[in-house]
């Protein structure tokens, strides 16, 4: 649906900065405790052309089905909602082979959840990061 059909979003989205060797971009990311890996939409990876990919492909199983993803390494991933900003360097991420597979970056348990205890305060609509 279009034109005014947006409903209020209650997703655990955070503000992230993504850096490849030569470019950087900021976008939104879903904090997803159900995801084992961190993923980046193909559309976003394409505007970071200096990313280098491994030859191997990874098979990803999600709620929407199974898809293949390429493996790459970000120069840096920064969580901007956290004070001070949390930086993850040389972060390995998966990029789906096809566009339209992901609507936003997915922060899985491989990096962010290893550094922070993350609490979802559903009633207060708040997401809290506590450094471990």
């Amino acid at each position, binding site marked *: 649906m279009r*034109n005014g059909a947006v409903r209020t979003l209650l997703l655990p989205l955070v503000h992230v900065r993504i850096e490849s060797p030569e470019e950087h971009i*900021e976008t*939104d990311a879903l904090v997803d405790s159900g995801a084992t890996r961190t993923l980046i939409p193909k559309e976003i990876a394409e505007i970071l052309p200096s990313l280098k990919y491994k030859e191997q492909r990874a098979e990803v199983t999600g709620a929407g089905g199974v898809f293949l993803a390429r493996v790459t390494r970000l120069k840096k991933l920064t969580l901007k909602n956290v004070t001070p900003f949390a930086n993850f360097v040389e972060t390995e991420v998966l990029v789906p082979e096809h566009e339209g597979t992901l609507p936003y970056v997915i922060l899985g348990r491989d990096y962010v959840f290893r550094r922070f205890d993350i609490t979802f305060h559903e009633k207060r609509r708040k997401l809290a990061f506590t450094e471990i």
Partner: protein
Amino acid sequence: MKKSKVSGFEYVMSLGDKLGEYVEKWIVVLDNKIVASGENLKEVYKEAKEKHPQETLFVMKVPADKVMVL
């Protein structure tokens, strides 16, 4: 009164229903303003980057109803 600048993320999150015309489109945000939008991120990002080469741009796909029900 001068509008204070917030991050691109905070600006988009504050828009709520006003994002209706951008549903299922990619938007590029800079300084409390959507500076480019469209269905192809590569194209809209290029358009925005040509106008603002030194700035860090915030990009986001505005989700449709079907995406929001996760």
